């Protein structure tokens, strides 16, 4: 069975994790397919943004524990996974997580890697690795603490307990909660809103937002200004400002 189902909605690519029997566990093969599809989407001018979702009960339940158990220290040391995660992280267009049900372990780390996240009202987010004698290994500690702060991140990671959609909303892990049955619709609508914007501006803004977590403020401000300046050379900037002044919709060409 194909671990991913791809459907395109106008210029939005919807990727649905499709391993229901494995509760959408993110084994290496699935991560690899995901990386390949995102790399293809990055090079496809007809795709402006991407939504990742699971099923109604499981966004993604974690890594594949059998696969993990098979790896001793040397095998884990040389695991392909960090490179696969880096490839997902390199996707230059907006990435939206539409989370229904459980987003646990690697599933939660995938949500944290996305630019935007919305959730169904049944969503649960957790990093339960500690219960298995391990710890998050794909950004869980680093991205969660930057996202929700020390108190909640430490509580989640050290206790292994999940949080509800409501708590995730208050903590800033997600931006909206919807009824489960409408979550993907709303995520697609949100992605569609983004997709109407100038591609280079979107890409630059995403890059600048990412930089905020990498560099000190002064360096970040300089990089932000450089990207802002770079956009001054684009035809789409000219078009965007002209369209606004002429009170008409803008037609961007991605240059």
């Amino acid at each position: 069975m194909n671990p991913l189902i791809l459907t395109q909605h106008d210029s939005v690519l919807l990727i649905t994790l499709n391993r229901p029997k494995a509760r959408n566990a993110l084994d290496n093969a699935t991560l690899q397919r995901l990386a390949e599809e995102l790399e293809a989407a990055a090079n496809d001018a007809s795709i402006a943004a991407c939504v990742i979702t699971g099923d109604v009960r499981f966004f993604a339940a974690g890594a594949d524990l059998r696969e993990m158990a098979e790896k001793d220290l040397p095998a884990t040391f040389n695991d392909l996974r960090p490179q696969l995660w880096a490839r997902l992280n390199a996707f230059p267009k907006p990435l939206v997580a539409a989370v229904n049900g459980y987003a646990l372990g690697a599933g939660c780390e995938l949500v944290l890697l996305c630019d935007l996240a919305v959730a169904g009202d049944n969503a649960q987010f957790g990093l339960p690795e500690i219960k298995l004698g391990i710890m998050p290994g794909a950004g869980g500690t680093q991205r969660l603490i930057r996202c929700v702060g020390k108190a909640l991140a430490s509580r989640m990671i050290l206790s292994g307990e999940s949080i509800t959609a409501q708590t995730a909303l208050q903590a800033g892990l997600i931006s909206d909660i919807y009824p489960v049955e409408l979550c993907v619709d709303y995520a697609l609508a949100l992605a569609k809103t983004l997709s109407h914007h100038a591609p280079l501006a979107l890409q630059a803004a995403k890059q600048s937002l990412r930089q905020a977590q990498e560099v000190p403020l002064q360096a970040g401000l300089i990089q932000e200004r450089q990207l802002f300046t770079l956009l001054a050379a684009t035809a789409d900037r000219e078009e965007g400002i002209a369209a606004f002044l002429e009170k008409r919709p803008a037609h961007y060409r991605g240059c």
Partner: protein
Amino acid sequence: METLLCEVTRGVMTLTLNRPDRLNSFNVALHQALAKCLTQAEQDDSIRCVVITGAGRGFCAGQDLNDRNVDPNGPAPDLGESVDKLYNPLVKRLAALRKPVIAAVNGVAAGAGATLALGCDIVIASRQASFVMAFSRLGLVPDSGGTWLLPRLAGRARAAGLALLGGKLSAEQAEAWGLIWQVVDDSEFSATVEQLAQHLAMQPTYGLGLIKQALRAAETNTLAQQLDVERDFQRLAGRSSDYREGVSAFLAKRPPQFTGK
């Protein structure tokens, strides 16, 4: 003897608390039996209404105090444990159940028995029934949602009077104060409950479940938030087959045949 009788007839699950010699008070076995039946009610689409009632002369006397015999020389018991593990999950599941729950209060409802009944979607009481917030008389606090429900149902003044004094509130007074839906004469009680349950079991269950959720959401939402909830739920309701059936039956001037989906 079974502590809980569970009967499913024509879409109605009737749960009869069945410890009549103990006024149907709760012990662990009764909690476990209720939890099991609720799982069935949650999963089985053919069940479209749940009725909770009591066997014998009472509805439910709350926690069985025989299980709470405090040794005066021993350490203090942790009552929070059973609230957390047994009562709170029960209250949450009844509230979250996407089908109507009727409390058929046949006699005295005391303590958690009273607060549990008042938390159901539709409360019908027989004329001999009464509600007793007995907690304060033992030095305890109304639980199973009591302190949340009472101010919302009765207003602050009556909530405080009921909870602090712990007196008996007659079914008639409860109806007059708007705490419950209806009081029915004892002789007509079972027939009225059955008729109501049968009616609800033939209604558009999916839509009723959405209404129930919307009303719960309204307890904490602002108007603007609730308008968003209504928009979303209407969107979902519009996709249901019962909505199509309802409209076509109305236009064809025939009675609708709802499937609950």
